[in-house]
């Protein structure tokens, strides 16, 4: 198989596409968003509970159907969110989006992105960027829907 293909489908991605960390349903979510890729019908419903600070989440859960890229991306996002309680996730989303729009250029910041750097190879494939972004866009919409946290109130 070609190198480009293995750069995209790294073992970590294939593994997460099967394990699907965070694939469950929250009984009491503070925000929920359904994101659909109309070109292929892939979909994700992502739920969060509010975290201790603006942009942070308490719990993050998701369920959906889609390709290995979209499923693995949701799984890795859930793992990152679980590892970063109380942290504003917006800079992480911005960093991820920047990498996904890089067309495979540059070196992603793995200290910021953690395991999500594995999608750097996917960013070369413009047709698949939307797959990788699906869960992240859903999280962004959930954060928008959450009431402003204590940090935002302090800033205001």
């Amino acid at each position, binding site marked *: 198989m070609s190198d480009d293909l293995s750069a995209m489908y790294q073992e970590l991605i294939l593994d997460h596409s099967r394990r699907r960390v965070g694939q469950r349903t929250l009984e009491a979510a503070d925000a929920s968003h359904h994101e659909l890729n109309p070109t292929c*019908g892939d979909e994700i419903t992502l739920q969060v509970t509010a975290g201790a600070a603006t942009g942070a989440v308490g719990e993050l859960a998701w369920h959906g159907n889609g390709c290995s890229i979209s499923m693995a991306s949701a799984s890795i996002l859930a793992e990152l969110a679980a590892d970063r309680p109380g942290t504003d996730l917006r800079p992480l989303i911005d960093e991820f989006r920047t990498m996904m729009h890089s067309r495979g250029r540059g070196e992603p910041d793995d200290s910021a992105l953690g395991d999500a750097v594995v999608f750097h190879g996917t960013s070369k494939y413009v047709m698949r960027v939307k797959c990788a972004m699906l869960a992240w866009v859903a999280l962004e919409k959930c954060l928008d829907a959450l009431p402003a946290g204590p940090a935002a109130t302090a800033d205001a």
Partner: protein
Amino acid sequence: MAPMTLSDTTVALTDAEVAAIRSDFPALDARVNGHPLAYLDSGATAQRPLAVLDRERAFLLESNAAVHRGAHTLAGDATEAFEDARHTVAQFIGAGDDEVVWTANATDALNLVAHAFTAANRPGAVPDERLALRPGDEIVVTEAEHHANLIPWQQVAAATGATLRFVPVDDDGVWTMVDAAAVLTPRTRIIAVAHVSNVTGYTAPVAQLVAAAKELGAITVLDACQSAPHRPLDLGALGVDFAAFSSHKMLGPTGIGVLYGRQPLLDALPPFRTGGSMISTVTMESAEFLPAPQRFEAGTQPVSQAVALAEAVRYLDRVGLDRIEAREHELTTRMVDGLTGMPGIRLVGPRVGEQRTGIAAFDVAGVHAHDVGQLLDARGIAVRVGHHCAQPLHRRLGLTATTRASLYLYSTTDEVDRMLDAVSGVRAYFGAR
């Protein structure tokens, strides 16, 4: 192209003839991801032969001008070429010149017909009886339609109070006249179906459907997108009232399609778009419309595209649609046989035989179609992945997306075999259980 003398018109194109044809399509020589391109996505859009590109360029260099206006020499040349193109396409589909309307594409053509029904039945209007839709009247489509032949009819139903009904498909995505007969009633006013399904490749029993429609006094609309490029088509003989197809699926340019409308019915249709070039007399209060087809061709038309489409039609005529159909049938059988025997592969649509034309869509157990397509692309094989603008059909089949390989006159045995070989390795690559 290489001159071809095709004496026996019942024999499939040979490998040598296909090789000669391929030399007319330089786009097929591309290398993709280190492999020779295997273009198996002609159902989405076809590649174009040099003759078509050359003809459009020559027109633009020698005869380009606005048509049906102006009196200078170029305007005359352009108008003549534009109307000659209409005649060529009309001959190709067994139609009269005044039964061929240029549209932007097949979607546009289907919208033109649908909106004409809505316009004819708008509040306060007294519709032509052939076009009348009253609350409780029924529009019938199938569960396998492309969105372009579904959503316009949903809109007509919503606007007129008519009811949209559908012919259900079986677990393979196939419907029969028995299924259709169970849905048709004396209230059926319009029957709109795909001639060949863009997902299953299933060929509809159009002649029987037209006979049933005539008994009910219903109007028939044929989505001929996947049939016009691939088999001889005589719409006049088939007896449908309207048909739509796109140029870019039959070796022609994008931006132009065809609406066929049987006369005098076509002349009864109110215009969809209004403006320049479609009127006879205009006052500040009102306008009189030209007869079809000009009535439906408001504004500047895709002139060089029409000229190029006519060249594409001439190309297809030279090769012979019957020979193309026979060749595609051989390759389709090869695809179907290969995919049917493969573990974890679920082919949708009819198994084999005359019912399937040039298309094989399938699901790979445990692997999403996007991932299948990506692996094939890494080997230079271009296929379509997704729902192919047929979400209700996929939902009925219990699938979100499928992988679709589709053929054309330039497709080779080797390309089909490469696709089959790549597909056979997909599940192992992704560790599907």
